[in-house]
């Protein structure tokens, strides 16, 4: 007998490494939804074609049952309340886990770049230079700002807080550091747990 499909890793095994937090109604709190979407945005700013790569990760990680296609991916990302096309639906814990797995999977692939950009930034700060002095870093920041402005609703207070270029750069850099922590041995567990700080019973 010939197999037509390669065996896919079971969904449950990967998802089970992340415990269900005791959140009200069993759905993701607002800060978690926002944070997940921002981290995905940072990854898209780091590598071209990021959103296509997310979809290939879905296949690779065997998450097709949760994220069926790009529309589903778009829908669950727009549960971020700061989005222009905010979907007024909740993000289930299972969907959030799938996105966290994708974030950490991509972050691990990007470890070298993330480390390099952060070390460059440290050096620039030491020399009291602005991030624009490094091409790759300034590219990342520029693309992040563009993505952010294109997709977030400028009328929301949470977005107005990032109206200046410096504030957006700060956000982009802090997301970059968070991505670094996602690359670690326990990165997925650490990111997952941190999403629910202050929101569990």
């Amino acid at each position, binding site marked *: 007998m010939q197999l037509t499909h390669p065996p896919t890793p079971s969904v449950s095994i990967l998802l089970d490494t992340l415990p269900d937090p005791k959140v009200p109604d069993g759905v993701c709190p607002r800060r978690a939804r926002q944070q997940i979407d921002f981290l995905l945005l940072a990854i898209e700013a780091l590598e071209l074609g990021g959103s296509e790569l997310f979809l290939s990760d879905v296949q690779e990680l065997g998450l097709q049952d949760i994220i069926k296609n790009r529309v589903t991916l778009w829908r669950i990302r727009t549960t971020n309340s700061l989005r222009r096309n905010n979907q007024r639906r909740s993000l289930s814990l299972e969907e959030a886990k799938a996105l966290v797995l994708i974030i950490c999977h991509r972050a691990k692939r990007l470890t070298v770049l993330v480390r390099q950009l952060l070390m460059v930034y440290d050096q620039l700060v030491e020399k009291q230079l602005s991030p624009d002095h490094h091409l790759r870093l300034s590219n990342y920041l520029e693309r992040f700002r563009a993505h952010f402005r294109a997709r977030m609703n400028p009328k929301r207070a949470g977005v107005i807080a990032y109206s200046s270029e410096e504030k957006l750069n700060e956000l982009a850099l802090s997301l970059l550091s968070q991505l670094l922590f996602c690359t*670690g041995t326990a990165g997925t567990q650490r990111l997952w747990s*941190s999403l629910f*700080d202050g929101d569990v019973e």
Partner: protein
Amino acid sequence: MTIQRQYSLPNCKLVLHGVSSGADTSGRPLLSTVTNVECYLAGQKVPLTGGRTFLDSLTTAVSDYAQSYLSGIHHLLRRDRRQTEGLVNLQQVGHNLHRMTVQPETGSAGTPTEVDLTTVQLFDLVEAVDQLYADGQTMPDLSLQLNPLSRRDVVAQEPLTKRATPAAIGLSGLAAAAALLFMLPVPEVRRPETAAEGTSTSQGSPTPSPAATGNSPSPAASPETASPSPTASPAAASPTPASPTVASPAAGQPGVGANLANTSSITDPAELDRLTVQLYDQLNLAWRKTPTFDGELVYRVGVDSGGKIVGYKYSNDSALTYVTDTPLADVQFQSPAPEAGATGAASALAQFRVVFKSDGVLEVSPWDGQPDETAP
């Protein structure tokens, strides 16, 4: 048999020296007792060293700090609750700089060591700790413990001003709504009056009630008449107990909204406890009327730091209808609104949920004890 385990990363090397207690069965023996720990950090000539206490404190502090860094919410409280006094402490000192302070172990003389780590260096330290946690053959009793902070922990950490902000915003919204709804009915109530004037020319009657009753068939008229003229309200409100006239509670005590908006709320738990008891005693003593209602009357009551009731608001429909059954109806007159309004932002307020039950049971609890409805 002495064993050495090493976790190396570009900016950090964690070395554990220890002994194996169990029988050596596999190729990699189990390190179960640690005798000495060395932590080499980039830029430091001398490693940080210590024993088991140091290792425990280092791993806990680093792990907790990593979680605070990821979520932006401090994990300090949880650590304080633990029995062991932390030898290692981490705090953010700059945008991308983290200061690790290591106290000398008890019994040994020395001064605290301070090391400044960049975010990448911090990550390497976290990674070394995580690799140690993940290593089943080294210190199996040390493993990664991640628990998100509970809502309670976070509330306690936030500064008072930050905690008071949402309440203040909410209350100023309430005040604005109260002001608007107070103003809205005023022009409308004159319409039936002038209509009555036009037809019957009874200009001499000062009370609006004849006009109101004259126009009563239209259901919209009754809640409107209720609010501007307090004398007419019991009469107008009682035939329509089902309609939640939002305007009248606001108009009933115009001082409440304004008061609550300008003041900070009392959030100290001890103070709230004291006020809860005081308010309960005050209301329980004054509540002498036999309940004529069924179910519960729920009120939101504002109390100043002296325990005096400065205002209240209806929280359900029957609470509005049967307010005269409760001592709140009398209490209100003891604290006139203008006086409270004049003091402005001077005194802080605490808000309570007061429930009168038809079986004579009185319940008083802090309003913030109720789960807040947050916007999705």
